């Protein structure tokens, strides 16, 4: 796989006439941002075998006030690269969310006043998925050691954005979601070989299985996300948008062993002054205080990503790749 499947998807999206005026000024390693921006984005993350589609309808800069709405859908495969499009279908997993809110400008009528605006929004989402858990039981049937686990959860977020002049965008969300620790389990690849023998013949079947080992836990979690984006001129014809973000994760209750986590990241995107995205990169440090004790070396925990857009006429397609 599955270059053909990806290519097919690209062509389908373009072929259906879907006009995507993609615009993202910042995003974290999961492709998320608290700053809402108008337009549609398709985001492909080959490193995570994930595909995100989002569309936001926001009053543009000319409007003094108005309502906003949007949808986001994400398909992600926990079974590894090459299975995002299984048998021509996107396998179950990921999340879908709906956003609704309100936007209003600050001091729109005063002469020489700085333009600004604020937005508030609520977002309701649902996630679901399945994966194989390696249970290491004493079963004689090796396949029984791989238990298929289904999970799902609801989330609710309240967010606000603030634009100050032409130079600063701030975003903040708080929310609660039914979460799990799947992302912290150890991923392992297995090859299950079954052999059938008959007289002097032997039939060998090999099946590649991705499984996770560890103690799978589900719990409620309180999240705080914050983003800040700056806009700077770069020469006469380019614009640079450096950004930074924090993600705090506070598991609730005591029926789990999941610690409080803090992720942080820095990045930058580059645009022409006509608004075309040229590319960008970001650096994320997950689990700043190393609560998960995955790797004591800070540099080894860093995630480096590159963001760029492939253009199909007026369409835009964002991808980002991980180390």
């Amino acid at each position, binding site marked *: 796989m599955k270059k053909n499947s990806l290519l097919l998807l690209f062509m389908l999206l373009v072929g259906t006439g879907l006009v995507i005026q993609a615009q993202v000024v910042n995003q974290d390693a999961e492709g998320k941002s608290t700053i809402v921006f108008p337009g549609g984005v398709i985001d492909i993350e080959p490193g995570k075998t994930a595909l995100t589609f989002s569309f936001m309808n926001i009053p*543009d*800069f*000319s409007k003094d006030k108005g309502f906003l709405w949007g949808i986001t859908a994400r398909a992600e495969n926990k079974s590894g690269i090459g299975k995002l499009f299984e048998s021509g279908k996107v396998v179950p997993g990921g999340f879908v969310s709906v956003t609704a809110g309100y936007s209003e*400008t600050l001091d729109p009528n005063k002469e020489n006043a700085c333009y600004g605006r604020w937005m508030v929004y609520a977002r309701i989402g649902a996630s679901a998925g399945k994966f194989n858990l390696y249970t290491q039981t004493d079963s004689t049937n090796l396949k029984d050691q791989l238990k298929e686990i289904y999970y799902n959860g609801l989330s609710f977020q309240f967010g606000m954005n603030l634009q100050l*002049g*032409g130079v600063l965008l701030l975003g903040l969300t708080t929310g609660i979601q039914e979460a799990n620790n799947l992302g912290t389990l150890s991923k392992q690849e297995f090859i299950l070989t079954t052999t059938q023998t008959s007289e002097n013949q032997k039939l060998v079947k090999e099946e590649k299985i991705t499984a996770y080992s560890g103690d799978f836990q589900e719990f409620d979690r309180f999240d705080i996300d914050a983003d800040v984006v700056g*806009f700077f001129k*770069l020469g006469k014809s380019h614009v640079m948008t450096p950004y930074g973000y924090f993600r705090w994760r506070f598991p609730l209750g005591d029926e789990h062993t999941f610690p409080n986590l803090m992720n942080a990241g820095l990045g930058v995107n580059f645009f022409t*002054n006509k608004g075309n995205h040229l590319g960008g990169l970001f650096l994320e440090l997950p689990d700043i205080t190393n609560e998960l004790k995955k790797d004591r070396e800070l540099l080894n925990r860093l995630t480096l990503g590159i963001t760029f857009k492939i253009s199909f006429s007026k369409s835009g397609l964002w991808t980002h790749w991980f180390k």
Partner: protein
Amino acid sequence: MKQVNVYFKFTRNQFIGVKELSFEGKEIPLEQYRSPNNDFSYEGDIKGLLVVGDFEVLVNCRGLLGFIWSLEVKINGKPLTKNPITGEIGARGTSIIYKSYPLPRKEK
């Protein structure tokens, strides 16, 4: 004072919104002229638009620093003496141009 045929094309990107576009003090109802790629363009008579002397243009844009817009104007098929008119969003998040431009010269 005379009625004229006007062509205009306002080009911007998603980082810019047009709060107001006026010719000779008459505000243009931009939403009527929005094209599929979110530019605004029109050619024809604009009801109530009468030109006296130079051609007065007001552009009031909002957006994010460094991004540019462009306005192409033709009067009776001929471009204004400055064509296109361009502007850039500043640190205040606005770009406002209020200026008069000489009409194109008549050919003899």
